[in-house]
């Protein structure tokens, strides 16, 4: 819990942190350059984003129906499907699948961050590794993933080199980013082979096929979820769209607005491995559909916009407040960051803290321009302010 003065102090300190600022400045300048290039090369993406907005609107309005069809699809393909109403329930289900004393590899996933799943599994005596480079750094350096697709946006390469030097006990050159990536990759390589369970989220889920889509650039996700004998996917209910065709559209929009001309890998997972020599993959495919406030939000005319969010991170890169405080906005206890993070925290987490953080929004609306779904964050955040103001 925090009041307005605590929010003010947290954000004031963050805005005066020179390392944070350097890291954010570099990331934002790089994103803006990439975004302009992507928009120039693929101008049709704007129309595709409009189409995806319609797909999302329909899907959020039919969430219950999609969830029940998704359960059938997963089971039909030989997987196990679950509905978790709350974060506790989701953790309990994953806890039972994993057990104790196991090695777990994780794909980067904001939804599992929402559940604090890594910490939960560690407390139960499991060894858990984040395999996305940025998320791996956050696991050891904290304080939280600070951006949807660039979780270590708050860290400079200098900081990372310093950490790796100590962690790996080898010499690391701060300007050799490739070298640092290789070091972490080597460290994780045998974890994949020893892991009992691979855990992922989903970028989008195609209901007709029971397919989990995972977008990545480092090939770590493919290894994390296909080498261990069990794959658990935690899918927020807002990720469900009716068809494979819809899902591919979502994938393209996420990648482009995330600033990628090409996204290196797109994985589609449609059930456990079949019993043939040619098919590699886990023997068990578990899909957990997570509610945790989403169904309630889907019935709220203003809050439901939160669920259109594809988590591409464009709004975070281009928000003037995020540009100086990064993921401190929404609070360090929230998995989510920035104005959209406040909205997600309000929907899935601590409404009171989110309410205080809502007052840091400028209502300037650059996020709406940035967002492929044209989510009106100022409108939603103002509504959150209104709801807490009415209680005084």
């Amino acid at each position, binding site marked *: 819990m925090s009041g307005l003065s605590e929010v003010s102090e947290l954000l*004031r300190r963050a805005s005066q942190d020179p390392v944070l600022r350097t890291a954010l400045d570099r990331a934002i300048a790089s994103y803006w350059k990439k975004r302009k290039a992507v928009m120039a090369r693929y101008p049709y993406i704007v129309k595709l984003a409009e189409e995806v907005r319609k797909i999302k609107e329909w899907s959020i309005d039919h969430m219950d129906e999609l969830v029940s069809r998704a359960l059938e699809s997963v089971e039909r393909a030989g997987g196990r499907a679950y509905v978790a109403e709350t974060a506790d329930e989701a953790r309990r289900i994953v806890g039972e699948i994993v057990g104790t004393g196991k090695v777990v590899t994780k794909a980067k996933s904001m939804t599992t961050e929402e559940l604090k799943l890594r910490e939960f599994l560690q407390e139960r005596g499991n060894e858990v590794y984040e395999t996305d480079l940025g998320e791996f750094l956050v696991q050891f350096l904290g304080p939280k993933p600070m951006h949807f697709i660039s979780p270590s946006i708050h860290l400079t390469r200098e900081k990372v080199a310093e950490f790796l030097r100590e962690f790996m006990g080898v010499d690391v050159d701060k300007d050799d980013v490739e070298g640092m990536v290789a070091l972490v990759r080597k460290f994780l390589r045998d974890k994949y082979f020893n892991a009992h369970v691979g855990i992922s989220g989903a970028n989008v889920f195609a209901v007709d096929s029971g397919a989990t889509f995972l977008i990545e650039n480092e090939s770590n996700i493919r290894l994390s979820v296909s080498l261990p004998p069990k794959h658990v996917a935690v899918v927020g209910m807002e990720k469900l769209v009716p068809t494979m065709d819809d899902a591919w559209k979502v994938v393209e929009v996420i990648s482009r607005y995330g600033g990628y001309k090409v996204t290196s890998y797109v994985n589609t997972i449609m059930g456990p491995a079949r019993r043939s020599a040619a098919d590699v993959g886990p023997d068990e495919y578990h899909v957990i559909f997570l509610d945790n406030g989403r169904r309630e939000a889907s019935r709220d005319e203003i809050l439901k916009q939160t669920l259109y969010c594809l988590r591409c991170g464009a709004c975070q890169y281009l928000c*003037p*407040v995020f540009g*100086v405080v990064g993921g401190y906005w929404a609070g360090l206890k929230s998995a989510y960051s920035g104005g959209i993070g406040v909205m997600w925290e309000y929907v899935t987490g601590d409404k009171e803290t989110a309410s205080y953080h809502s*007052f840091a929004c400028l*209502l300037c609306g650059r996020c709406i321009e940035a967002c492929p779904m044209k989510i009106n964050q100022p409108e939603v955040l103002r509504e959150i302010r209104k709801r*807490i103001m009415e209680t005084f």
Partner: protein
Amino acid sequence: MGMDLKAVKSLLEDNARRTWNPLGIRESYCGQWAQGLNLPAKGENLLYTGCLYQMIPYIEMFSGMLKRLESLGPTVFRLAMGANKLFNSLGISTTSLLGITISRAERERYFSILRTIASALRRAGVEFAYMREEPYNGVLYHDLGMDEVFGRHVRRLADRIRETGAKRIITVDPHTTYMLRYLMGEFVEGFDAEVIHYMDLLLERGYEPSGKGPKSVAIHDPCYLARWNGLIDQPRELLSRAGVQVLEPEFSRKFTGCCGGPIESLLPSLASTIALKRLKELKETGSSDVVVMCPICLTNFSREARQVGVRVHDITEVIG
């Protein structure tokens, strides 16, 4: 918890009840800018300022005080927000705000911006009335989610506007423009006056400004002007007619960067940091003269201008 926000709310409600202004500023003060211009009180066209320009010196004072409080840490900040006594002892109570007379020099700049707009409109052949007791636009209440106070405020504003007999309202800042165009209808039944920004009106009348300031400026699109009201080409056209060269920053037009102003009343340090960053972007155009078209941008930037080494002008101070 919630003490601080509750205190903010009750301070604003208190002032709203007494003066219809969040800082406790009188409406007679808001109308002073037009003294001696012989503007009528009734007419088809109404020039309504929303009092934002006039409030700048008071906003400056209030924000400076908040920043001092904020720098003392969260506990003091919360106590101060909660305790009217401490507020008083720091000389920032609303009654003492009212007691302070803003010096002629301090307010002159902002009054003169409004007079420049009025005389440009007259030269362009537009006749208009104004309200001698000019109400504040109410936007802060809406921004903070205080819809009840906002509703009450704008219903009274609508009545006051109706009394002038105006069919068309001429606005001078983006926040008032947005509020009248898009929020009034939601809170006031049957409010249907036409709303036109003075820049649109000047262009429509073929106004040719003379140009009286710097010959080359970095343009800062105010968020509410460019994104929320869609006025993007208008200031550029007026500047170019005045013979002023317009330099575009990296983030411009629909992607303009906010000045930080909207959060200055609650998070003043953060607002300053954002202003500084934006001013540096503007300075990278190569010009040290920044032009804005919004009183909130004007005040929030002016405070940080010296540190960045730029001068901040309202567009009226450049085009004349």
